[in-house]
């Protein structure tokens, strides 16, 4: 299971080992600040917005259509923006670093 580093809006680095589920659910379970997961991970609320570290954007991949629509409504959207609930954690993502955007 992968290890993921979240950099919170306050600048704190939170490392979640043995992360399971999605970038959103692993963050909520570990109380990573700035990720709320209000809709439970169904791409409806955008409270799980992260910037994927440049070194990882290829492996994580781009946002899907529905995700892009929601991201349109958020502040701080960049090329590397993703909704955490739409990124399933796999062994290939071991070492992933993301910055939490927060609201």
């Amino acid at each position, binding site marked *: 299971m992968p290890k993921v580093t979240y950099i919170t809006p306050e600048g704190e680095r939170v490392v979640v080992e043995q992360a399971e589920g999605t970038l959103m*659910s692993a963050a*909520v*379970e*570990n*109380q990573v*600040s700035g990720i*709320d*997961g*209000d*809709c*439970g*991970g*169904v*791409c*409806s*609320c955008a409270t799980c917005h992260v910037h994927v570290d440049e070194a990882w954007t290829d492996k994580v991949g781009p946002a899907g*259509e*529905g*995700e*892009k*629509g*929601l991201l*349109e*409504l958020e502040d701080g959207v960049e090329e590397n923006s993703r909704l955490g609930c739409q990124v399933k954690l796999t062994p290939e993502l071991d070492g992933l670093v993301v910055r939490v955007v927060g609201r």
Partner: protein
Amino acid sequence: MSTRCVIVGAGHGAAQLCASLAAAKWDGCITLIGEEPHLPYHRPALSKTQLDPEGDHALQLIRPEDFYHANRVEFLSGTIAERIDRTARCVEAGGRSIAYDKLVLCTGSIHRLPPIAGMNLPGVFTLRTAADAAGIRHAVAAASRVVVIGGGFIGLEVAASLRKRGCGVAVLELADRVLARVTSPAVSDFFETLHRGRGVDLRTGIGAREIRKSEGGMEVVVSDESTIACDAVVIGTGAAPNTSLAEEAGLHVDNGIRVDAWNVSSDPDIFALGDCCSQHHPLYDRVLRLESVQNALEQAKTVAGVLTGHPRPHDALPWFWSHQYDVKLQIAGVSHGYDAVVIRGIPEPGASFSAWYFRNGGLLAVDAVNDAAAYATGTKLLKLGARPDPDRLKDSSVSLKEILQQAKETEHA
């Protein structure tokens, strides 16, 4: 002494209130009283992944257990708040009398049960709690025949999830179309076609009279006196605000516990939020009672603002979602009371389209079906208070970007 906040009802609103108070480093103490045995969990999943054969049936907590410990929230699980004593300022629950300085009622909603004989038979279910969902899961096997009474969001989501399980599903809707209270005929039509295409026996303009035992299981007698044989019945006939506690305490209740813009009830020390309350909404200039996660969360943030000394009235734009099969519906705003609607795109299974609702030329709401761009644009237009041209919206050769751009220019003009 620090402020004692007692929260009744451990659902979406309660979880958000705890989270917002914790984030603001509020120094009071919180007691959370919940009738269900669980910490607050994601309720919308009950009709979706919780019934889906491929879904994860573990409950998804809104915040992990550690969060409540770390923030010293005393959680009384499986405990019903029975009475509020407003003079002594305490709540009676589980044989205890719990004193409060501020009381927050987030008791959600209860089922509006239709007057049908046989509602108490085993095999008849409602769906509000995790226990209800587990009951349905255990009662239905792949080959079961299920009658869903009520073609609202929950009824239709249950129908979709049970079809995925392989069940035979009939849906009975008393009105002449499904989702009649919340959407326009074109959108109802789309969902009816969708469900029929997936093999649901969907009947509108037909009510259930009686549920009774039969030789092979049970049967539902419908209004034309025919019967539908089945193994289980799910009632999805809508909800009513859960206000009994508030009513007994003499609070002002009118289709929900009436609250002001700060979610304060008619007693200045008692707040109410979420499904159980009704409130004047500034964007729609009328009293609304909404049943949605978004509404409960925003109102909880408003209450937290008052408690922490940063009051901010509730004025957020409502939004909602529903999932049925591979269809995702996203709603921005509230369409109730519309006098015109235009459809953008073609409402057919497999396609994406949107319905735009107006009143006196102002945009009220958008229903977006598999169309995130329409949802996003609709949200932006609603936040601008825009009056987009319905004819241009209807015309798919005019891009949503252009429409939005024009609205922005009009606003600045």
